[in-house]
């Protein structure tokens, strides 16, 4: 068969079969390419979409990108049921099977080391949102522009700012506490940049966007911990996703410091917030 080879993940050999109806990014069922005791999960993709030039254009096409990302994730998901996959970034493409084999040979030590680190573990995503202030929602939009004088305006602004800061402080505190609690059950954590608040489909502002690497046999307990935190503080919402393959932990460990740097960004009011509220 002609076409290019799209690689989803690398894993160790596993006994179970993948779902027979599983399809990859271009509708082709994923195959297992066994080499040097490792498995590359591969499917055939057409040059019309995955040659260099075509792919560059395709990646800019939102509909195509969304469909491809979902298909990629579906294969990774199916693998996560039967083994611990090491997920590759979307659109990792080789000319033929021998290109995939060479790639395995070049990196087999890294693969083994990372697979050992991830073995028997999954990723859980936890996001914390600050919802709209219930008090200001109760007395709807009387913004400061109605102020009778400049002094009133400034006073109103000050009060609004203070209420706003209080809510942020509460959210920051909860997020930090939750993160600490959850970290105690996780083997590793990553703090990702918050998802865009104004435009994300989710209500409220995303203040914590964290990933936790958790052993499978601890996962149930982990989920219960998140569940317990859910109703703790009014106006603050906790959202759990997973189990994911360990996407956020697939890179080499040097990635950690860089990601920890997003912590300040991840928890606390973004600067542009100061200008809002009028």
């Amino acid at each position: 068969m002609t076409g290019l080879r799209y690689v989803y993940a690398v894993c160790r050999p596993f006994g179970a079969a993948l779902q027979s109806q599983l399809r990859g990014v271009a509708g082709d069922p994923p195959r297992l390419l066994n080499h040097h005791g490792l498995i590359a999960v591969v499917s055939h993709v057409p040059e019309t979409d995955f040659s260099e030039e075509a792919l560059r254009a395709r990646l800019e096409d939102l509909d195509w990108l969304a469909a491809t990302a979902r298909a990629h994730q579906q294969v990774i998901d199916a693998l996560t049921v039967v083994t611990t996959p090491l997920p590759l970034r979307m659109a990792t493409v080789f000319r033929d099977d021998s290109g995939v084999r060479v790639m395995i040979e070049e990196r087999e030590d890294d693969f083994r080391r990372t697979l050992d680190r991830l073995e028997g573990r999954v990723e859980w995503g936890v996001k914390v949102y600050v919802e709209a202030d219930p008090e200001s929602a109760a007395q709807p939009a009387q913004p400061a522009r109605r102020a009778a004088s400049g002094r009133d305006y400034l006073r109103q602004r000050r009060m609004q700012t203070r209420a706003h800061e209080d809510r942020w402080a509460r959210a920051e505190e909860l997020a930090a506490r939750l993160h600490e609690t959850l970290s105690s059950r996780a083997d590793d954590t990553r703090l990702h940049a918050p998802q865009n608040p104004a435009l994300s489909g989710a209500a409220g502002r995303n203040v914590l966007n964290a990933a936790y690497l958790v052993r499978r046999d601890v996962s149930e307990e982990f989920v219960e911990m998140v569940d317990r935190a859910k109703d703790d503080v009014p106006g603050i919402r906790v959202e759990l996703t997973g189990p994911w393959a360990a996407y956020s932990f697939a890179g080499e460990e040097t990635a950690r410091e860089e990601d920890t740097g997003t912590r300040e960004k991840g928890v606390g009011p973004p600067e542009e917030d100061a200008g809002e509220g009028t």
Partner: protein
Amino acid sequence: MTTPGRLPEPYGQGQSANLADILERVLDKGIVIAGDIRINLLDIELLTVKLRLVVASVDKAKEMGIDWWESDPALSSHARRDELTRENAELRERLRELESGRAPREAP
């Protein structure tokens, strides 16, 4: 069934709202290997920035009756086909208005 360990039922998956979560991982995370097909990663980073601004909002925007991204030829094949580019600026403007109209409620 030979699962390598018991796992709780999936949370927050299979919903369309989850596209942002999927893209965040599939496009941004995962191990980076240069294949035979060389895609400039910078292109993907730029795209990701664009997505942070746009994709996360798709469902919400549709809900609100805004689909300007569908008319952005850089973001959708529909637009290239239908040549709706000119409407784009108008729709962007409308989104801006709606966004600023929303601001006082969300950020008191």
